[in-house]
């Protein structure tokens, strides 16, 4: 990633890794590790509440489906910077990409925890086993390819640190191919995460079952990508006590606004065309969750429509949080709340199941903190640049 225009070059933050925050995070990761050990020794049923009626619990729906959507910051920003050529967002590329890298790598690891016969996972890529008609095949191949692409896309940060200028220069020459792949692959698998549900047929409530699911998942993944960038910028600015790049975030939120408006319009037109609008008035958990989900999509639309709010960090943060929660609920609702395979089945994640998902988030945050302290990722401020120069 070449630095561009007149932005300050990315610089490591420095500072100690052992703080109360990081120690708590490490403890959460350790707890998840112990639970996973039990899972591998005694089977999925020993620690999770999944059953034949809800065979995919939060390890799939949260860790993979939602986790990868929350990791779309790198995708959304790369699309903006390199495809729509909005160079002014360049300082956001590296931090966003790092979060994506972690999110996706952990989502990939999460798949292994959930696969019953994980030692066979390579069959997905192996001719003779691979079954390209399966939506799952597309998702698996595409996510794996994207993880590899992201590590390459991110490698300039390591190369900077290692001082390998020649390699970096050569890589930079080819970086446009990697960037193109880095925008194509997420478009493919984020939409396919929605397509996965189409074969479920009647088992998915009409409020969610639609042939437009791939488009809905793609549009919300992009919007979530922008929301996550805003969310993380707010958190890392308060956590690391750095100035907030308000002019960029405000503009970014405008992109998000249009994205959201288009999504909501399509979503309700689709419901109307399929004659499913009435389902939102059928009393029950499905209708209730549908209302909450869509209220959370509409809330940021209302907040961000006001230009004044787009310049207010607190309001931006609230809008971004609402949107993330809305995207979270769309996925929870379509995979779990709106899924019904027959009478008598229930699912709510067990404590150990939740602790593993929390452990994964903790691992992600911990890795992010460690890397921004040691690698040039966040845009340098005058202060940090001075520290770097003194070295």
């Amino acid at each position, binding site marked *: 990633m070449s630095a561009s225009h007149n932005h300050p070059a990315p610089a490591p933050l420095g500072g100690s890794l052992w703080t109360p925050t990081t120690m708590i995070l490490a403890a959460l990761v350790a707890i998840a590790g112990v639970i996973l050990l039990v899972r591998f020794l005694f089977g999925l049923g020993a620690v999770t509440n999944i059953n034949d009626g809800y065979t995919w619990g939060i390890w799939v729906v949260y860790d993979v489906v939602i986790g990868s959507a929350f990791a779309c910051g790198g995708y959304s920003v790369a699309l903006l910077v390199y495809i729509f050529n909005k160079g002014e967002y360049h300082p956001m590329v590296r931090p966003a990409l790092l979060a994506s890298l972690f999110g996706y790598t952990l989502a990939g690891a999460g798949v292994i925890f959930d696969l019953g*016969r994980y030692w066979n996972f390579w069959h997905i890529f192996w001719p003779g086993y691979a079954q390209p008609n399966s939506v799952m095949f597309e998702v698996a191949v595409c996510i794996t390819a994207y993880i590899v692409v992201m590590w390459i896309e991110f490698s300039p940060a390591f190369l900077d640190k290692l001082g390998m200028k020649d390699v970096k220069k050569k890589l930079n020459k080819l970086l446009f191919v990697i960037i193109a792949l880095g925008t194509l692959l997420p478009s493919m698998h984020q939409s396919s995460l929605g397509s996965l549900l189409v074969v*479920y*047929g009647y088992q998915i409530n009409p409020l969610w079952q639609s042939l437009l699911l791939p488009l809905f998942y793609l549009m919300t993944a992009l919007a979530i990508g922008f929301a996550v960038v805003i969310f993380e910028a707010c958190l890392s600015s308060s956590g690391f006590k750095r100035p907030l790049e308000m002019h960029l975030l405000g503009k970014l939120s405008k992109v998000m606004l249009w994205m959201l408006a288009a999504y909501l319009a399509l979503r309700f037109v689709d419901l109307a065309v399929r004659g499913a609008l009435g389902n939102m008035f059928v009393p029950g958990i499905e209708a209730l969750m549908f209302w909450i989900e869509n209220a959370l999509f509409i809330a940021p639309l209302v907040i961000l429509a006001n230009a004044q709010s787009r310049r207010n960090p607190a309001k931006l943060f609230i809008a971004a949080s609402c949107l993330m929660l809305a995207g979270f609920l769309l996925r929870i609702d379509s995979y779990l709340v709106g899924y019904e395979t027959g009478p008598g089945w229930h699912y709510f994640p067990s404590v150990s199941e939740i602790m593993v998902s929390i452990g994964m988030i903790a691992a992600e945050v911990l890795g992010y903190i460690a890397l921004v302290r040691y690698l040039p990722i966040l845009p340098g401020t005058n202060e940090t640049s001075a520290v770097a120069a003194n070295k």
Partner: protein
Amino acid sequence: MSINRRDFLKGALAGGTLLATGAPAEARPNLTMPEEALGLLYDSTLCIGCKACVSACKEVNNMPPEFSTPEQLWDTPLDISGKTLNVIKVYQDGNSETKDSETDGFAFMKVSCLHCVDPSCVSACPVSAMIKDPVTGIVSYNVDACIGCRYCVAACPFGVPRFQYDKAIPQISKCQLCVHRLPEGKYAACAEVCPTGATLYGKVKDLHAEAQRRVALKPGEATLFPRGNINTHDQSPHTAKAAKYLPQIYGEKEVGGTQMLKLSAVPFEKLGMPKLPERSYAATSETMQHTLYGNALVLPLAFLGALTYIAKRNVKHDDDADDEKK
């Protein structure tokens, strides 16, 4: 920036044109039944709920017993599971006095794999662990290929494939129509042991003809019911009075047809068999996937080309800025 925006639009336009012309969105039709397809005919009105089929299924498939009573003396599965491939369920209403009556009556239903003509599990499986035999149409499971993702468990419209959650080395379990007994010249154990011919084995076309014959019978009319294997006549038929059949053969049209056909006097939905469309969900899902990714990945490759072109322009722009600074 205006130049680059124009480039982007050019690329997008090229992609859009391909989307419109390169992907004719040719619908993938439902798969069709193999000529010599094998299957079962389950006649709820003949079933007496003896569960000989449940017991025989356990034995020939080496499945462990499953307990639902505190004494744990007998194999008493309540549903199919990682330990049970076939159960007989009972429908009860009111005082449960009359067999095959929707009100104040009771009726039985066999729960096991229906061996769909166009199975969702086969379409969903990413590693070809669910296979539909091109000759017999039997949907079988290859444990050595399976990665345990359980997409088949979730996708099946009948909730048939089950998973072993209590094992460190688990597998999917589902009825495979005793495919392992075919080389020995034997057939599905459930049909072999059924004393009334409620579960009948054979070629689907013959089972279908038999089902049509029964539906056309006058209620109360005495008739011969074959038992065991309808094609080899290995067991003697028995005479019984025809029940008041519903004019429906379940599995004839549901999700493109199944190789297990069912007859009943009580509405199928009451017996836990869902109302399903004729178009298979596998066909819907694959049509969508092929529209997006078919034709040798034309669409994704076209977009990749457009994205690469645009990215090259814009990244180069960055490099120039770098050089200027130096």
